[in-house]
């Protein structure tokens, strides 16, 4: 045994005391957190979690044991492909007794129906309850874009945002440099830049984006946000045949027909990705989450040449279309405490940072985006992080907060596809608006 511990010198004593003084606040804070918050409170319970199958779900499900060791709560999680998960959630919520205690929802699609059906528990009382919420939780760390999605019109917070997707403009720096074209500052400049970069002889399109019905609607709404408008106004009226919507549709039509690759009419994000990744498109408008495959030199010919830009400003406003996922607890859940501990853990700073580091999407918390070490070590480059932060400041929902989102996307998606085929934007939007209006009215009355 080292007897110096028992007989400390003055130097050791002073040094030790100094360290103790310096480290005391952190130690006390940590000790306080450990002592006041009991993660084991619901030990022995089981939480059933329903995720959408994606990389984010895979990452968190792989770490379930960490949560089980910390809380003594058993996790039974399943991840179902997106469309089927939405069907399952709807049917189970409608039954009144869903089989899950925690559910991941696509808020850009399911927010309104969740509110209307009173599917989920308001999380605010639990967040305010010190016995249920860890002091490390730090609610203020969640960004405004995510919280806007999670907050219903009546002020309830029925989900905790987990992932916020911002639409950005990917551009091929090499092609831009070759033609001496600058990154567009406005939406109109996207078209003029695309016209300069469009080179069908070499198999290069100036611009690529989704043409496939349903999937294509966020492209159009992105342009409409540039007019400072969404597709449904605050009073719940459709703005889809307004002059601004027609302007956005005309821009959509020109970009997807005049400077697009052949066959863009049927492109979803995957065809757009493969076109851009093979260097056959100069610009691509889509969600932020494609940096990982684009920067993977084994799968992409443009790795290291990809530029990431905030969507340029429109004639009247500057916004980035946003989409978000959140996690909630069913109203009928009988294990709300354990479920809330799970959500807290799943959306904690560490797990949000893991998601970011793995290129699985942009987190709903601010702290991971300020992590300088992550930014320095990331192969996506600082521009990608700057684009997220910049987009977060101007984020606005890319889809209307209504119940029949899928029908909205289908009806207007077909109109947009018809436009690529040559149809008149004004006539198509008028027809689609006429077709969708009764659907919307009926959904709100039901």
């Amino acid at each position: 045994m080292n007897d110096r511990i028992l007989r400390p010198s003055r130097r050791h004593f002073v040094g030790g005391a100094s360290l103790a003084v310096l480290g005391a606040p952190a130690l006390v804070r940590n000790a306080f957190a450990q002592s006041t918050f009991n993660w084991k409170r619901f030990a022995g319970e089981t939480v059933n979690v329903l995720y959408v199958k994606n990389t984010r779900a895979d990452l968190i499900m792989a770490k379930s044991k960490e949560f089980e060791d910390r809380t003594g709560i058993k996790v039974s999680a399943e991840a179902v492909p997106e469309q089927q998960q939405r069907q399952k959630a709807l049917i189970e919520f409608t039954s009144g007794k869903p089989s899950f205690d925690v559910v991941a929802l696509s808020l850009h699609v399911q927010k309104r129906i969740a509110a209307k059906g009173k599917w989920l528990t308001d999380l605010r009382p639990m967040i305010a309850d010190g016995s249920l919420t860890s002091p490390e939780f730090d609610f203020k760390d969640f960004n405004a874009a995510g919280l806007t999605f999670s907050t219903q019109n009546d002020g309830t917070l029925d989900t905790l945002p987990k992932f916020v997707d911002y639409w950005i403009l990917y551009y091929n720096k090499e092609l831009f440099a070759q033609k001496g074209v600058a990154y567009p500052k406005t939406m109109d400049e996207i078209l003029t830049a695309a016209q300069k970069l469009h080179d069908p002889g070499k198999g290069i399109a100036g611009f690529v984006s989704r043409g496939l019905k349903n999937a294509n609607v966020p492209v159009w709404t992105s342009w409409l946000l540039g007019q400072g408008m969404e597709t449904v106004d605050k009073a719940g009226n459709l703005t889809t045949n307004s002059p601004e919507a027609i302007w956005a549709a005309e821009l959509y039509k020109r970009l997807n027909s005049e400077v697009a690759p052949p066959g863009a009419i049927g492109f979803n994000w995957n065809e757009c990705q493969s076109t851009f990744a093979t260097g056959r498109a100069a610009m691509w408008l889509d969600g932020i989450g494609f940096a990982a495959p684009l920067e993977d030199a084994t799968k992409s010919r443009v790795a290291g040449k990809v530029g990431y830009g905030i969507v340029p400003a429109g004639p009247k406003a500057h916004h980035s279309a946003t989409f978000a996922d959140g996690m909630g607890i069913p109203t009928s859940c009988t294990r709300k405490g354990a479920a809330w501990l799970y959500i807290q853990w799943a959306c904690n700073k560490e797990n949000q940072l893991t998601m970011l580091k793995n290129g699985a999407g942009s987190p709903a918390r601010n702290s991971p985006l300020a992590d300088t070490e992550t930014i320095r070590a990331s192969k996506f480059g600082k521009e990608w992080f700057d684009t997220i932060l910049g987009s977060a400041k101007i984020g606005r929902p890319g889809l209307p907060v209504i119940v029949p989102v899928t029908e909205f996307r289908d009806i207007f998606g077909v109109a947009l596809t018809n436009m690529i085929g040559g149809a008149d934007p004004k006539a198509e939007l008028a027809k689609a608006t006429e077709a969708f209006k009764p659907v919307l009215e009926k959904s709100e009355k039901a």
Partner: protein
Amino acid sequence: MSIAAPGVERNYWPFVLPALIVVLGVIVFPWVFTLFMSVHDWNVSGAVTFVGFENFRQLFTDARFYESVLHTLYFTVLAVVLPVGIGLAAALVFHREFKGRGILRGIFIMPMMATPVAVALVWTMMFHPQLGVLNYLLGLVGLPPSTWVYNTKTVIPTLVIVEVWHWTPLVMLIVLGGLANLPTEPYEAAEIDGASSFQKFRHITFPLILPNLMIALILRTIDALKAFDTIYVITQGGPGTASETMNIFLYLQAFAYFKLGYASAVVVIFFTLVIALSLLLLHVRQKTKWNA
């Protein structure tokens, strides 16, 4: 001769009942329930209201539904005629003895063993207008590239290519079965009469294998009418609604828009169409029997 003891009533019900329960539960009940739903405004998340024939009235004024019926018929005609024609030709070729016939026949029937969804995913990649192998092959022979399923005009014929590739082997196998059972006497008589190969085919082979062809035709028609997986995976009914068949339309109404009443009305119409076509084909088949 009766096996029951005199004075004892024979009771067959215990033997019939299990099968009857299964048939009622699995076939009759779903149908009755579908009919019941079709006369209701039935949304998964809303109230259920009786609306009489309102769903059918709406359906017959829905331009998208009419369009889906036309797409279904267009797709079905192509996806039946081409595999039956090519399958018949392939059967005639593979019926003859030649070197390597076994291996080639094995290769020819391989597509039939593939899972439709996997097949659809592979073809989707092949159809890519810029990166797909099909346009590369067209380029090699000096032909211009096509936009395949990414074009409203070519999408259905292109989807039929997948069906032809996938299901022609089935037709070939059915016809080969017929060819293997053909009697030799009529051919010997024709030979003596100096008939040409075409005449032998036209007047002996074709009439004798017609019942097999009719079976292939019925199976292909039912398969083509209910085609869903390939179309959904490759185009999801697009571009726009250019390849939206009744099944895709039905799927969207039921599982994307959750209008179960409206979707049930589509099922009733679709079922009527399938029954009508099947009865027609069965009637034709009766006329093609050897002893007819």
